[in-house]
């Protein structure tokens, strides 16, 4: 089929292939599962991508599937311990100097 020639021959006149697409919007659902980059020369990602996600923690285990509209809250019944997160998310321990500051009420210079 030759689209433009057929359209030209039709009685309704030619409809360009270029169409006004309307205001652009973000698709309602985007699949964020890692896939090879379109310009990559190989058709698969190293296994490390999946392996990292299996053990990584970002507001819960990264391996859990999320979509663009999902809540960051864990689902009902799903819990995880703060200590399972990377150390930067742990409760900070107080140093001796900090304790001294608190106990002195700020009364030393």
């Amino acid at each position, binding site marked *: 089929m030759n689209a433009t020639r057929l359209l030209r021959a039709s009685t309704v006149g030619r409809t360009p292939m270029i169409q006004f697409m309307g205001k652009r919007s973000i698709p309602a659902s985007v699949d964020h599962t890692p896939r090879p980059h379109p310009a990559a020369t190989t058709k698969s990602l190293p296994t490390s991508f999946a392996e990292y996600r299996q053990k990584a923690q970002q507001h819960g285990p990264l391996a859990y599937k999320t979509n*663009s509209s999902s809540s960051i809250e864990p689902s009902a019944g799903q819990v995880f311990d703060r200590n399972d997160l990377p150390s930067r998310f742990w409760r900070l321990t107080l140093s001796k100097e900090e304790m001294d500051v608190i106990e002195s009420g700020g009364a030393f210079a």
Partner: protein
Amino acid sequence: MLKSFIPRQSARSLLRPLNPGAPSAFYLVPRRGFASETPEHDVIVIGGGPGGYVAAIKAAQAGLKTACIEKRGALGGTCLNVGCIPSKSLLNNSHIYHQILHDVKNRGIDVEGVKLNLTQMMKAKETSVTGLTKGIEYLFKKNGVEYIKGTATLTGEHEIKVNPLDGGSPETYNAKNIIIATGSEATPFPGLEIDEQRIITSTGAIALTEVPKKMIVIGGGIIGLEMGSVWSRLGSDVTVVEYLGAIGGPGMDADMAKTMQKILSKQGMKFKLNTKVMGGDINTDSIAINVEAAKGGKQETLGADVVLVAIGRRPYTTGLGLENVGVETDERGRIIIDQEYRTKIPHIRVIGDVTFGAMLAHKAEEEGIAAVEYISKGYGHVNYGAIPSVMYTHPEAAWVGLTEQEVKATGKDYNIGSFPFSANSRAKTNLDTEGMVKFITDKETDRILGIHIIGPNAGEMIAEGVLALEYGASAEDIARTSHAHPTLSEAFKEAAMAAFSKPIHA
């Protein structure tokens, strides 16, 4: 002493959700901060080239607390400092010089006493470069991007150590998201040590202090042909040695490559195709380059004062500390990423020359914007099928989409429509008629598959082709669109007419 221990309220950006959908954005709980700690950034971009600085500005515009680390001491990367921009200055000014010497007499302009002032030509180049790099610094200030001058090393998944350029003590920065945009460097030729004086890369080719009598260019790609053109116009005897059977690199259509070679040969450049460089002897007075036929056989020695090594570029990751965080590269040194520019560590993204795809500034810019949109909105867009390439010789060569050879390889039936600038009224009045426009379209649907141009201002004209490809236009769509008369763009329209029907003026 007390001051340094008083807990400080967490930075606003730590508590603010970036985007509920973006998978790599970290949503941090409030935590105690101290005045001695560097506040965490939403995004830190490593590299201030076209990909990096655009990503940084875009991130700041999206409301993210952003910093950009650059080790060169000037923003703009290779492109602005030692690549696209300075070479375009020299290409433009050397073309004017060449035109005055060889062309204006035919146009009724007699000029006497024309002399090359290379020092002034280089100053004009530097003025352009300085103006543009300062311009980016202004844009950083305007958009609130923190500019960190120093060398960045990844020391943790969220941590970057910066050695300041001013020699101060290293500082550590933390970021929720890191974008690597460290670019590329010229690939050296084994056995020829680059000194940027006599054995040069593109960096040395824009800074020579005198016109070499003889120049050998190793590599007939875009960089080699552009820089070869500059020094050929200024009086150098230039020979291009290319391993492959055609100039222009793998992306250039074979017809166009042949046409371009004829045009450049007419301008005085010499070509040795299918020729392999075996090595070189560097003496005090001259350089001898040993070459032989690529398939073996005939050997020859070429003499030169300056040798330009332009065999390609390779990703630049030296000192970046990828090994500290386990980010992987492929066999060509490119950082491995997925479709959203994420490394295996999802909040470390990579754009531009240092990863997959063509090493082009505008491709890096598109990726910079897309990467930030993935962070801030969870969705980005780059169409790798519609990235234009331009060679700024005279005439220019520009193309987008598939070459005829690539289309043929798919087995698809296709139409070719071409139109020469010698039949274009504006080109005729300009006395600048070399080149042509070539359309490749799908025979069945008339959809444009590729557009290839050699001609004056081809680099500007290709933008219409890129838009057409982006929208999925047919050749008839272009042919039925009014183009002003008399303009060079009428050749574009006529080539489209030739692809789906017949041109009027040829």
